[in-house]
């Protein structure tokens, strides 16, 4: 194998693939990236056995071939090379990859390609295309609620599925950690009808999110019972799905909440942030007392004292006091892009539903705290 590639192109591709590679692993080859040179392009491939990324980029291939080399080391080297440098990669079959750029020369220990695990590709039953912006919005507004508690593995991801919402076919993402829940939907893209419900693991979600940060245009999504694949430009990310049953989330989203409160989202956010500064406990609880036209936020701590802030709001129902974890409340407020948030509540011990007044596509459910 012998090829020459522009430093920035190599860096970009390596940057994408190396973040899939785990820092510490018990199987040495999993620390490596697979390099495949053929027909004027270099393909880079990395995996952690659950998640696989393949990216190809243009290169001047002198002699085709393939090899695996330590991903993080390679990335580190390329990152430190001067801008605009040409990088030559050569592997002659003697166990070391030679990287030459300008007057720098590196010999990297390699492992044979045959040992590199391939995520069995299998067939995908449904394929549809989605704009990068839409996918961003599906992910961003739900991922904050993903559970990190490993024992409830079926909550360690985003539930992506097609369903029917008031007679309209939609593509939905849902995430919950048992304390709060986020649900976002978009009109169902062509080809997604009848797709199986998939729980996309947290790591895959964050890798996809990184890839679509810069991407414009469409993302092809392919799903099967066990896998999901995102094709973004020259990059293909394939992940195993979480093998579990996502809870019946519809049941916990209340429909009969009758106390409605609307208020400016930014104002509330800032007020919550300020008031919660006083609560020293880890849960950072905060109380919202709602009266006609006015919400009073309060927090107290025997150590620090207490805080009260009044915020104007449109509220007509009877007086209600409800406690929340302020961090959870702030998380949700951050997702709301419009000016106003609408809270619908029943009482201080039932789930509160929060929506963006100007955008009905997202629903957030927050369970109160007893303080």
């Amino acid at each position: 194998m012998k090829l020459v590639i522009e430093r920035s192109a190599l860096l970009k591709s390596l940057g994408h693939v190396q973040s899939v590679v785990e820092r510490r692993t018990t199987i040495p080859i999993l620390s490596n990236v697979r390099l495949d040179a053929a027909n004027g392009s270099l393909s880079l491939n990395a995996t952690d056995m659950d998640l696989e990324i393949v990216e190809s980029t243009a290169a001047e291939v002198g002699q085709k071939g393939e090899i695996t080399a330590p991903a993080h080391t390679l990335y580190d080297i390329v990152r430190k090379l001067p801008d605009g440098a040409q990088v030559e990669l050569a592997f002659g079959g003697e166990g070391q990859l030679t990287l030459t750029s300008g007057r720098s020369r590196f010999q990297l220990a390699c492992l044979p390609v045959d040992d590199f695990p391939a995520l069995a590709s299998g067939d995908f039953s449904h394929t549809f295309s989605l704009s990068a912006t839409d996918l961003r919005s599906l992910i961003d507004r739900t991922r904050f609620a993903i559970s990190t508690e490993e024992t409830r593995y079926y909550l360690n991801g985003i539930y992506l599925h097609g369903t029917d919402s008031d007679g309209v076919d939609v593509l939905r993402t849902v995430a919950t950690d048992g304390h709060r829940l986020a649900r976002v939907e978009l009109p169902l893209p062509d080809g997604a009808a009848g797709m199986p419900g998939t729980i996309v693991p947290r790591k895959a979600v964050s890798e996809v999110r990184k890839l679509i940060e810069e991407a414009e245009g469409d993302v092809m999504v392919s799903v099967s019972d066990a896998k999901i694949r995102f094709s973004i430009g020259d990059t293909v990310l394939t992940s195993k799905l979480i093998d579990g049953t996502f809870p019946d989330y519809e049941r916990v989203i209340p429909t009969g909440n009758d106390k409605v409160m609307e208020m400016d989202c930014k104002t509330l956010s800032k007020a919550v942030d300020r008031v919660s500064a006083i609560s020293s406990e880890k849960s950072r609880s905060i109380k919202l007392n709602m009266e006609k036209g006015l919400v009073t936020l309060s927090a107290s701590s025997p150590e620090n004292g207490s805080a009260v802030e009044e915020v104007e709001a449109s509220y007509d129902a009877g007086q209600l006091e409800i406690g929340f974890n302020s961090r959870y409340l702030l998380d949700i407020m951050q997702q709301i892009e419009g000016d106003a948030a609408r809270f619908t509540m029943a009482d201080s011990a039932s789930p509160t539903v929060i929506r963006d007044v100007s955008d009905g596509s997202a629903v957030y459910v927050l369970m109160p705290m007893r303080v």
Partner: protein
Amino acid sequence: MTVRFLPPNLVNQIAAGEVVERPASVVKELVENALDAGASHVDVTMNDGGRSRIVVADDGCGMDDRELALAVERHATSKLPDDDLTKIGFFGFRGEALPSIGAVARLTITSRTQDAPSAWYIRIEGGRREGPVPTPHPAGTRVEVRDLFYATPARLKFLKTARTELNHAVDTIERLAMANPTVAFTLMADGRTRLSLEVEDGDLFDARLARLGAIMGKDFVPNAVKVEADRGGMRLTGYAGVPTYNRGNALAQHMFVNGRPVRDRLLQGVVRRAYQDFLASNRYPYLALFLDVLPREVDVNVHPAKAEVRFRDAGQVRGLIIGALKHALAEAGHQASTTASDAALGAMTPGTLPPRPSQSLFDVARAGQAPLQETGLAEDQTTYDDAPTAVVFDPKTDNGADGDYPLGVARAQVHETYIVAQTEDGLVIVDQHAAHERLVYERMKAMLADTGVARQLLLLPEVVDLDEAAAQCLAARADELAELGLVLEAFGDGAVMIREVPALLGDTDVQGLVKDLADELADFGEALTLQDKMADVCGTMACHGSIRAGRRLGGPEMNALLREMEHTPHAGQCNHGRPTYVTLKLTDIEKLFGRR
């Protein structure tokens, strides 16, 4: 095959199977009889681990010939005067011990009442009785058991080595001796004195403490705090070791109910609960607790050997013990283990100067004549500076150093980790991080107790599958758990549904937590995990929120820390039972230098 009554001898052998398990149980029955007879000296002799011979001699009230003949019959006893099983005022009452022993061994009893002209002697061998015949003997009773289990070879085979059996007997006598400090005990084993406990004088507490010290080791005495509590007709007394004086197993935890040593799981649970904040879960305190309850409140007729008892109101007993222990420990909050300072003293070695590079005699001679050189001093100074430094400050400028403070006035900080303070009669060395961590932790706990545990309601209630008994057990304690922040309800027969969790724990493994709790409730009757977990969170937060080792402290800061430690309960140890400070008495320091 027809149904018939078994011959009396066989009946006694069967009863012996329950009562006489091993030599130690014979010792227990006989010593209890001696104590019931009001003895002030009990002498036990054992040969070959009790297999060939056990003798228990006392100076109690004794028996006359008529009583002696009856004593070896089944269900004959002097200890149930009112024929009322709800009023048991003696160790025994079943009237089974002597005939049972007589059925499996060669038993001889010699006894004389105080005013009788002569003693009487009776002998039982394999269930057959000989006597009583008159014989000379001082007032009191002497029971001799030879060839234990000769009549039941199967049981004989299950005996352990002589040493093991002897140890069991020692354990038995020690436990009885703890409860009876005014009685002298001796144990001779194969001609050697194994145990010799004098009569202890003074009031009950002093006598007990002295006796406990004689048995549990003399370190127990300075490290024990008095426990005393009354509630609803129950009285708890005894001594509990300070948390910093601990050990790796629960063998030094003794409980006595109405003077009767019992091994009860209840005790293990409550002790762990009471010491929860001060000891790591694999360390156990030393303690001996004496619970006096009205005889009708406790059922001792549960177990033939009476090792277990049942309380009418176990919850109240638990509450009493936990409350009393916590109270006692709070009072002792400042008593760090004396063994800690002893260990510190033991580790000190007389100072030796580092060896100097060898010098020729000439150099030495010249140096001796030379005037003291400034440069030499300066060199010394630099090496001194390279060493880890002590920051010394003048206390007089900081506050009135004469105040009467138990932890004294800070004099210096050494290695940026330890505060050295001078007290009236010695010095105190404080681990600044451990001490401050404990203070922050105590503050957080007080806050938690003040405001109650904030609970996060669950959007998706968790159903935890358990076995039926465990689920019921949890559901029965739901109120108590709710106070700790865990709200659950029974969900069908073998499951509970968790509705609210302590907000402190965040996104936590509810299933694992609830299963651990169920196990603990079954084992100890206490829900420890939940508090442990919260204490862990508090502990971590306390650790991050406290000053670390390596932080340089000024004089006022050090003194403020000392003053706060004096005012904070339980400041004497960290959460794992290690001391936060040690005290060195001036007398100890003087000893180090050979001045005493």
